[in-house]
């Protein structure tokens, strides 16, 4: 039974199948919201209300010709999409949904898993850099360096912002953090500033406007993905979608009290809370214009990092005086 349950966990929910379906749904939500913010229609005709459009895009890309540039490091170039997909799927397993219990610690929930999750979510950035670098295109190379430059900007504020609820909950385990806030929902409020910072940083991590600098199409064509086509590009796009789900899941876990209620209620909680985060992500995307890479770094270090430090101070003081 445990083996079956583990297999279900890995392959169906919240593993491969669920993440694939749900991430395409999230992309649809994101596209539809973005379109409606802009007074457009968005995807309309593939499936009901265009629900199947992201899947159709995925299938179409899978069927396209797959070109590897002659000058590229072919092995690395080919492995990177699969590698990055594996990373985000693994990260998805760490989200505390359905099959976890705070008391009995299974493999996927352990003290310190929040650090592992953050670490796994930083790895795709490195993959992007390597993808740009290994394809040897000038545009990709510039994109790759921009990825790394941005990484040094947003990563620190994100870590600090995510750690502040952990400090308040006095735990390094996602499940326990979530449980702590389920018991005392009012304590979500001191972390509000952290939530805002985390959403902005997740936006930067996912490379969406205003932080879509590494693949700014009007400047450097496809950026890191300029040379990618066919299946590899499909995998990268799927990976970005899953990363969207996982990072919004992370934000929902630590800031919005996790997903209690077993299988079905937990699933409902998961959907509602991640969509809530995705709504903000789409809103930021529609609201802003792309900024330059130097502006990202100065914004991250001059505004986000001090605010994250302030958030940490608030939490520490709060914990010392009131709790």
């Amino acid at each position: 039974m445990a083996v079956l349950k583990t297999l279900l966990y890995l392959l169906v929910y919240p593993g491969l199948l669920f993440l694939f379906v749900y991430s395409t749904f999230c992309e649809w939500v994101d596209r539809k919201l973005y379109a409606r913010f802009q007074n457009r229609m968005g995807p309309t005709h593939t499936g009901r209300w265009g629900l199947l459009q992201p899947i159709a895009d995925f299938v179409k890309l899978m069927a396209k010709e797959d070109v590897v540039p002659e000058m590229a490091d072919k092995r690395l170039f080919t492995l990177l999409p699969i590698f990055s997909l594996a990373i985000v799927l693994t990260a998805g397993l760490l989200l505390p949904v359905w099959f976890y219990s705070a008391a009995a610690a299974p493999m996927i929930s352990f003290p310190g898993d929040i650090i592992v999750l953050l670490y796994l979510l930083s790895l795709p950035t490195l993959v992007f850099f390597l993808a740009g670098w290994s394809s040897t295109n000038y545009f990709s190379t510039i994109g790759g360096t921009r990825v790394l430059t941005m990484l040094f900007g947003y990563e620190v504020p994100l870590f600090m912002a995510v750690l502040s609820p952990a400090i308040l909950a006095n735990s390094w385990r996602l499940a326990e953090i979530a449980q702590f806030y389920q018991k005392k929902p009012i304590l979500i409020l001191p972390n509000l500033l952290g939530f805002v910072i985390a959403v902005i940083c997740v936006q930067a991590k996912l490379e969406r406007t205003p932080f879509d600098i590494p693949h700014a199409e009007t400047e450097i064509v496809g950026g890191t993905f300029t040379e990618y086509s066919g299946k590899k590009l499909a995998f990268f796009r799927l990976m970005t979608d899953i990363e969207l789900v996982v990072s919004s899941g992370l934000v929902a876990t630590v800031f919005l009290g996790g997903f209690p209620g077993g299988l079905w209620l937990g699933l409902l909680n998961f959907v509602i809370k991640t969509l809530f985060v995705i709504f903000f992500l789409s809103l930021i995307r529609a609201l802003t214009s792309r900024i330059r890479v130097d502006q990202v770094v100065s914004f991250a270090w001059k505004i986000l990092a001090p605010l994250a430090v302030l958030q940490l101070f608030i939490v520490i003081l709060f914990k010392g005086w009131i709790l």
Partner: protein
Amino acid sequence: MKIAAFLPELLRHLFKKPATVDYPFKKLEVPKDFRGTPFLHPELCIVCRACERDCPAEAIEITQVSEAEKKFRLVIHNDRCVHCAQCLDSCPTTPVKAMDMDHLYEIADFDRHNLKMDWVYIRALPKKEPKPAPAAPQKQPPQPA
């Protein structure tokens, strides 16, 4: 400088009908003076060749088929037509112009030969009541929508 200056506008439009139209399924109406595809009323044409001379895209071609019967052939190459309607302006027949334009705008085709329209007709006499067309056009010209 204001943070998120666009926010109210965006949120307001979230629940509004989209400005775009679901095109191939719903269509917008064109104004009444829309310049569509030119076609000929062969019973009115006096073969002055003004349209052929002034057509900027050289899309109109008039040739004589039979001298004895005063039979002419007019071809409109819609694949070259730039829809400027100069042939209508140049056409001297009164009160009704022999050249006319419809309101069709979905005239794309995979084969450029399908866009060619031609008429074989007998020259009408100028400044007289238009007679019914003595020779049927080879291809039925599309009626104005």
